[in-house]
């Protein structure tokens, strides 16, 4: 591989780099999910009061809405957490070039947003992420819980936003270098994804379902 100029760098990130990253991502995610689900659960012999499936799926949805008590006690984490997650998904899923990518790779498409809107979402998302990083460094509980992985994951999630913003605003020249850096940052994110807490993007559906199912069995509203 010769990355002597920006174009070759871009070609690599659009070609081999993307293939490598996607392969590691897919292999890693599948391993992680199979490792979990194949462990299975012991059959519950207690007579159930309710069903599992419905409450399990309901919990998948209802856990996206935060309970009142948590909001009252941690409004900052809740609000900023929503902002950055929503902002991130707006940037990821509603920016037309991204839709083109997802259409080409997954075969599905949907309408995008005008670029200036996505651009604002990116700026807001980055501010929210910075605020959460500062919060993580300051708040006694978050600081106590945080490991190097939390900061690494923060950085690797932040970089695609930052490099995307830089590429969109053409703040690094030549543009292929900026776009290449953006793709490289996304590829790094994909590579570390299966080995870090980023996996929650997939496993939270399992976690919420299992908990909701348990609650359903016992007749507790999930």
């Amino acid at each position: 591989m010769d990355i002597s100029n920006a174009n070759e760098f871009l070609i690599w990130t659009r070609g081999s780099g993307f293939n490598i990253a996607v392969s590691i991502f897919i292999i890693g995610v599948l391993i992680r999910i199979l490792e979990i689900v194949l462990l299975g659960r012991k059959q519950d012999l207690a007579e159930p009061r309710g069903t599992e499936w419905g409450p399990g799926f309901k919990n998948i949805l209802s856990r996206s809405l935060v309970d009142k008590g948590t909001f009252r006690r941690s409004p900052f984490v809740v609000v900023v957490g929503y902002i950055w997650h929503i902002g991130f998904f707006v940037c990821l899923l509603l920016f037309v070039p991204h839709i083109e990518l997802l259409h080409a790779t997954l075969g599905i498409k949907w309408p995008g947003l005008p670029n200036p809107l996505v651009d604002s979402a990116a700026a807001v998302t980055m501010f929210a992420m910075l605020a959460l990083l500062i919060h993580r460094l300051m708040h006694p509980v978050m600081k106590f819980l945080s490991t190097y992985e939390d900061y690494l994951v923060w950085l690797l999630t932040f970089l695609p936003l930052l490099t995307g913003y830089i590429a969109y605003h053409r703040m690094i020249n030549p543009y292929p270098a900026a776009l290449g850096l953006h793709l490289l940052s996304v590829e790094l994110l994909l590579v570390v994804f299966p080995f870090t807490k980023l996996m929650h993007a997939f496993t939270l559906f399992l976690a919420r379902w299992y908990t909701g199912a348990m609650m359903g069995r016992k007749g507790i509203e999930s």
Partner: protein
Amino acid sequence: MSKQSLLDMLQQQGITRRGFLKYCSALTSLMALPPSMMPAVAAALETARRPSVIWLSFQECTGCTESLTRSHSPTIEGLIFNHISLDYHHTLQAASGTAAEQAREQAMHDNKGKYLVIVDGSIPLDNPGFSTIAGISNVDMLRETVANAHAVIAVGTCAAYGGLPHASPNPTGAVSVGELVKDKPLINIPGCPPVPTVISGVLAHYLTFGSIPELDELGRPKVFYGQSIHDRCYRRSFYDKGKFAMSFDDEGARKGWCLYRLGCKGPMTYNACATLKWNQQTSWPVESGHGCLGCSEPDFWDAGSFYRALSIPDGDYAKAAGYAVAAGVAVGAVAGVMNRSTKASAVSQHSPVSVDDFSVNKNNNQEG
């Protein structure tokens, strides 16, 4: 160099002084000089002498020469080209064989250290026999000709970056001029072909100042390659608004919306097409409804389909993903089975706890 000045020649061709000054004014702004520099540009050009130019064509298609010479009517650009003393150009010159080579050697000898070398086409290094002229390999001819040149201009993407011959798998081992010429001033004027105004503009700059213009990191004159097609594209506002043509014949295409989704490489392409246009400023690719191919960028042939959006990866990701799914399922299944056996073995090793096992009770029992 000939004694005849550029202005003399232009006047002989029927170009008025007014027309000349208009051109100088345009040239001044093209070269990003302050308007106050226009008289100096005009004065320099008026008295510019004809430099000797040796034009070497290697692995190329002659498109670059065509771009410059096949104008429908005489233009100042074309006439500036005519003004130079083109002592060797094996496509254009009348002489052939030994006489032709003699002309080249004569020019090199007479203008030692002063002549310009213009190259179009890439140079094969795998086997010199892939491309020879008069039995001389391209690489030898380039080295020999450049040795006493004042400066070198690589015209077209092949000369500047290797171009089509250099595209994967590069069967001839083609390289750009820049790979071989390290000790002479080198100007890259990429494009497939380059905008003729850019070629003549660089020559005009050379004629005006006797030096080469300011270059970017890829050796391109910044005045012509400093901005991307995307930044200067008249369809840019549609990109920002999210209005895209989805096919070449849909309503968006008819309304002139952005061609990004049809594969336009404008965002990554640095060239002057959007401002200078082609064919006496008649139009340019995006204006005629087709996305930019990115022809003036290195490796543009290898940068994926011309008709896929820039953001779409261009490797065989479907195949890679297919293998990854198979590998992930296989390894994941093994990992899952291992987990089950880890747990089963822990369960089988379980030794039941009774309340007598707690050390608190053991100690109490001993005491009691």
